[in-house]
């Protein structure tokens, strides 16, 4: 049978690497005081309708349930987590939660195929400030390190940078919309065309066109503080970023970190710091997140939050490219061959071995003895007395 278009099977060797990365991230998140949540796979479409961009809404898997209601496969976790905690009555805030699971989206263009992705991520709910932003960014960096990727980087930007720019641009609202769409699509040719059609005051137009190259450490913020007098939004972005950076410096994680004033995120719900993690070997981000202080309002609560999600399939691609992929290490189980006559005894022995953590399969054979074949060699057990079993177990423990 064919696979459904966009779906993929995971075979044992890959499953093992996936699970081990997931286990390491769980341990990391739990050590930082985050608790696991599991929102359902299926949600009402209405839940996402208010939080997703038009483009993302088109990519959601939607269908009718038997009550005739429009439901969908979750396209991401953040909205579900917000719904979950906006519904609960007395939230003990702040709340630190993490999740791990599949999300579903139709491909972003007719020329892409993947539709099922694994996201492992976390949300810090109930507090808003540089300390919380720094905690989440730090965890993003630690999470990437924990996956085993050697060269990775994280870029941090701010949703209010674009808002600030739009605020101060002396343009009609129609042209502003043009700028917004161009920035979102990373189409700087459209911006150049607009700027030559509609000359902007001097610092603005070169700045706008330079945006995708404005990447650096903290000094970048000082270089571009000239905006700050005119725009409230811009002021906030610069303030948030420099305070967060200070904390991240104290945490000692700025080595892999850059400030990027042109950072664009696909989700519309971000309101503050945004960030992306990537490896030079893979063409798309491995991790993405940010602050979304208005998302809970959609569900009737005014609670700030910040979080990120790591895209496991892309992380695997980066590991593969770095050749640190441990493909062959899926443990081959030992085999216990037994004659039907000794089945009961063989089963007891098998359970003993398994309880010691030895992966084991049982196979009937026609010989009269029990034979144990391990990856290191095989031994025949003529006589299954307690002593022989003990010896064997001791041997296997080595």
């Amino acid at each position, binding site marked *: 049978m064919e696979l459904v278009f966009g779906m993929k099977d995971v075979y044992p060797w890959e499953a093992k690497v996936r699970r081990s990365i997931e286990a390491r991230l769980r341990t990391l998140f739990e050590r930082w005081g985050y608790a696991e949540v599991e929102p359902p796979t299926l949600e009402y479409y209405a839940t996402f309708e208010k939080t997703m961009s038009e483009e993302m809404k088109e990519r959601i898997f939607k269908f009718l349930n038997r009550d005739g209601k429009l439901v969908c496969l979750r396209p991401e976790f953040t909205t579900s987590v917000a719904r979950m905690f906006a519904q609960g009555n007395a939230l003990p805030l702040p709340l630190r939660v993490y999740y791990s699971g599949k999300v579903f989206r139709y491909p*972003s*263009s*007719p*020329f892409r195929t993947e539709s099922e992705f694994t996201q492992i991520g976390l949300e810090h709910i109930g507090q808003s400030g540089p300390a919380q932003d720094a905690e989440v960014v730090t965890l993003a960096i630690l999470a990437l390190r924990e996956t085993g990727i050697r060269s990775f*980087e994280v*870029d941090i930007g701010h949703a209010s940078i674009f808002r600030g720019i739009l605020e101060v641009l002396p343009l009609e609202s129609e042209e502003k919309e043009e700028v917004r769409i161009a920035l979102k*699509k*990373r*189409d*700087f*040719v*459209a911006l*150049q*065309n607009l700027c030559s059609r509609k000359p902007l005051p001097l610092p603005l137009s070169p700045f706008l066109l330079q945006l*995708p*190259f404005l*990447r650096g450490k903290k000094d970048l913020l000082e270089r571009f503080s000239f905006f700050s007098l005119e725009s409230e939004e811009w002021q906030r972005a610069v303030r948030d970023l420099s305070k967060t950076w200070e904390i991240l410096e104290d945490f000692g994680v700025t080595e892999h970190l*850059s400030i*990027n004033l042109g950072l664009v995120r696909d989700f519309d719900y971000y309101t503050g710091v945004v960030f*992306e993690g*990537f*490896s*030079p*070997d*893979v*063409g*798309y*981000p491995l991790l993405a997140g940010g602050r979304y202080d208005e998302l809970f309002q959609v569900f009737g609560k005014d609670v700030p939050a910040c979080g990120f999600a790591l895209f496991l399939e892309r992380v695997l691609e980066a590991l593969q490219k770095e050749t640190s992929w441990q493909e062959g290490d899926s443990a081959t189980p030992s085999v216990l061959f037994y004659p039907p006559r000794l089945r009961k005894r063989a089963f007891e022995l098998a359970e003993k071995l398994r309880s010691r953590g030895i992966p084991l399969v049982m196979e009937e054979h026609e010989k009269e003895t029990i034979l144990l074949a391990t990856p290191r060699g095989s031994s025949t057990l003529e006589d299954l007395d307690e002593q022989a079993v003990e010896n064997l177990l001791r041997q296997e423990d080595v």
Partner: protein
Amino acid sequence: MKRLTLTLPTGRLKDDVVELLSRVLSRPLSLPSRQLVVDDPSLPWRIIFSHPKDVATYVEHGAADLGLVGKDILLERENEVYELLDLRIGKCTMVLAGPEHLTREILFRREHLRIATKYPHVTRRYLQEKGLNADIVVLYGSIELAPAIGIADAIVDLVSTGKTLRENRLHVLEEIAPISTRLVANRVSMKTRTLEIEDFVKILKEVVSGENRSETSGQS
């Protein structure tokens, strides 16, 4: 430091693109004619030649840091790449065209409209914006024949001089988008190779605007 990888289109645009890069180098860029991957240590870039339609895909997936690609392909594929510079070569227009005796108004009033194109995605979006229902017939070549042989009422295609349209007794009903070759960059390369890409864009920009000044009216 690893050099930047550039993807260039084969076919119609190749000569223009090689000529442009020669100007960037200030010396003729001589490339082996059949080789698709050029890893010449005397060049500042590694070069991959690909089908024009694949350039942006290579860049999007990180097989190349930068690519030179027609805007028509970018509109059709909507690749997630940075569009950095208009190279002002390969200029033409994407248009809706139909038989000479038809106006746009008459055509749009038809109940069953059928449009032939190489660009189904762009055409679908265009029709949506116009609020029109139409069947799209996807063809790979000689789009301009479609109305004459009766498989479509109109076409969406690229036009440069309009000569081909006239020869097929078609005329432009509406301009959809101006097209030219663009420099695109991978999202991650923009972050990991920021300075090198910025330098390349700067030089290319100078070359392109210089070229523009001395431009005679040379259209193919």
